[in-house]
C-alpha cells in the first residue's frame, strides 16, 4: 500500500494492489462455485451430440414429466398470486392487531425444510393421516397424485408473491384508490384499474421467482409424489431417477431444459430490476 500517496488513490477505496487481488480471488471463486456447475449441465447434455439430447427429451416419460411440471405450475401460480395479492392488500393497506405475527407466519415456509413440508402433507392427507380415512371414504387421492404435488408446491412458494408485493403496496399511498372510490368506482373496478396497474411489475417479478421455484422444487415434491413413472414424476424427480439409472445424457438433457428456464428467469429478473427498479421492492433483497 506504499503506492497510495504516489498514485493518489481516493481515500474511499482500497489500494490498487488490494483491489486487484480481492477481485481476482472473488471472481475466480465465483467462476468455480457458480458458473462451472451451470456450464457442466450443458456440456454433459450435449456430450453425445444434440440429436441424442433431443431424443432423450422426446421420450414419453420425459414428455409426461414436462407436461406435469407445467400443469403443476399452471395451477399453483394463479392460486399463489391471488393469495399474495390478498395478503398484500390486507397487510399493506390496513392496520390491525396481530399483523406482525401474520407476516411471520407467511414467511414460515422459508425456514422449513422442503422434506419436512412434504412429510407434514403426508401426515395430513396420507393413508393413516389425519384426513386419510375421510379422503379414502370419498375416493379422493391427494398424496401420490396431482393435488399433493400442487399442495407441496404451494407450501414451498407461498411467501414469494406476498413478500414482493407487501413493501411495494405499503409505499404507495392510498390516495389513488380513495380517489377511484370517491368517483364511484366499485371495489373490483378499483382493483382492476388502479391497484393492479400500480403493482404490475412487482407482481410479475414475484410470479417469476415463484415459477422458477415451483418448476424446480424437489424435496417437498419428492416426498409426496410416490415417483410413479409417467404419472407423478415432475422434471426434477425424473432427473433424479434417470441419474440414478446412469442415463447421464437423458438426465442432463432434462436438467439443461430446467437450467435454460433458470437462465431465462435470471435474464427477465435482471431486465425488470434494470427497467423498473423504482417499482420493485426486491431490488433491495433476494
Amino acid at each position, binding site marked *: *500500500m506504499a503506492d*497510495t500517496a504516489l498514485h493518489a488513490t481516493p*481515500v*474511499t*477505496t482500497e*489500494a490498487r494492489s488490494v*483491489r486487484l487481488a*480481492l*477481485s481476482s*480471488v*472473488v*471472481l475466480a*471463486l*465465483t467462476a468455480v462455485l*457458480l*458458473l*462451472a*456447475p451451470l456450464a*457442466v449441465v450443458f456440456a*454433459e447434455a450435449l456430450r453425445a451430440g444434440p440429436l441424442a439430447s433431443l431424443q432423450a427429451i422426446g421420450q414419453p416419460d420425459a414428455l409426461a414429466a414436462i407436461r406435469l411440471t407445467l400443469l403443476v405450475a399452471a395451477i399453483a401460480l394463479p392460486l399463489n398470486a391471488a*393469495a399474495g*395479492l390478498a*395478503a398484500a*392488500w*390486507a397487510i399493506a393497506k390496513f*392496520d390491525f*392487531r396481530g399483523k406482525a405475527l401474520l407476516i411471520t*407466519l*407467511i414467511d414460515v415456509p*422459508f*425456514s422449513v*425444510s*422442503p*422434506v419436512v413440508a412434504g*412429510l*407434514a*402433507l403426508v*401426515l*395430513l392427507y396420507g393413508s*393413516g*393421516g*389425519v384426513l386419510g380415512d375421510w379422503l379414502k371414504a370419498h375416493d379422493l387421492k391427494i398424496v401420490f397424485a396431482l393435488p399433493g404435488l400442487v399442495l407441496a408446491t404451494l407450501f414451498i412458494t*407461498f411467501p414469494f408473491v406476498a413478500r414482493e408485493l407487501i413493501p411495494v403496496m405499503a409505499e404507495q399511498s*392510498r390516495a389513488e384508490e380513495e380517489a377511484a*372510490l370517491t368517483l364511484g368506482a366499485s371495489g373490483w373496478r*378499483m*382493483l382492476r384499474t388502479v391497484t393492479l396497474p400500480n403493482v404490475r411489475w412487482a407482481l410479475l417479478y414475484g410470479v417469476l421467482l415463484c415459477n422458477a421455484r415451483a418448476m*424446480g422444487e*424437489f*424435496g417437498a415434491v*419428492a416426498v409426496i409424489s410416490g415417483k410413479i413413472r409417467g404419472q407423478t414424476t415432475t422434471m*426434477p424427480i425424473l*432427473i*433424479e431417477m434417470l*441419474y440414478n439409472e446412469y442415463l447421464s445424457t437423458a438426465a442432463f438433457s432434462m*436438467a439443461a431444459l430446467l437450467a435454460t428456464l*433458470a437462465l431465462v428467469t*435470471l435474464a427477465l429478473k*435482471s431486465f425488470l430490476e434494470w427497467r423498473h427498479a423504482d417499482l420493485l421492492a426486491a431490488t433491495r433483497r*433476494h
Partner: protein
Amino acid sequence: MLRTSSPLPGFPLALGLLLSALSVVVLLPLAALLGKGLAMGPGQVLHHLGSARVGAALLLSFRAALIAALFNLVFGAALAWVLARYRFPGRRLIDAAVDLPFALPTAVAGIALTTLYAPNGAFGRLLEPLGLHIAYTEAGIWLALIFVGLPFVVRTVQPVIDEIAPEWEEASATLGASRWTTLRRVVLPVLSPALMTGFALSLARSVGEYGSVIFIAGNLPGKTEIAPLLIVIRLEEYDYDAATAIGLAMLGISFGMLLLINATQVWTRRRIGHV
C-alpha cells in the same frame, strides 16, 4: 383482529382469503406434524431421536450448514463488496449470476456438482491426485450448501454497502485512519447487522437442504447421511413415527434459528441504533 378505520374496501375479503390459504397450505400440515408428535408422546419422539444414526444425521446437517454459512459469510461479503464498489468488465453478468442458486433447481445443481467433483470429473480429476476427495464425502456436502446459501449473504449485504455515505469514510480518512482501520471501525459495524442476517438466512436454508446434497453426499449412514434424507428413507419404509420425530427435531432447529435471527437483529439494532 380489529381494523382501524379506513375508507378502502375489501379488508374482510382479503384477510379471509389470506387466512384460509395460509391455513390450508401451511398451517394445517404443520399442525398435523405437531399433532402426530403429541400423539406419539415425548418419550417416543426422544426414543427415535436417541438412535445413533438419527443423532449423526442431525449433527451432520447442522455442522455442514454452519461450515457452509461461515464460508459464505466471508466469501459473500467479499463478493458483495467487489460488486458494489469496483467497476470491471462483466460486472453486471457476475451480479446476475449471483442469483443462479435461487433460480437453478436444486436437483440440477446436485447432479452438476457431483459430475464436476466425482473422481473422474473436470475438477475431481485435478483434486484426486492431491489427496482431496470432495464427492461422496462431507466436503461435498459443504460445497453443495455453499452453492445454495451464497446468494443470501450477497443479496442481504450488497444493498447496505450501496447505502454507505462516502462522507463517513472520508471523515475517517481525514482523521488519520488507515484504509484498514476505516474498514474495520467504520464500514464493518454498519454492515454487521446485514452480515448476521445473511449468515442466518444461509444457515437456515442449508440445514434443511435436500436436493443439491443427496447426489454428492454418498449417503453413508452415520457418516454422510443428512437428516432430510433420513426422513425420506423412513417414509419409504412407512416408519411414520421415526420420520415424524426427525421432522419435529428439524422444525425445532428451524424455529430456534428463526428466533435467534430476530434476537440478533433486535440486539444489533439496539447496539448500533440504525439500519
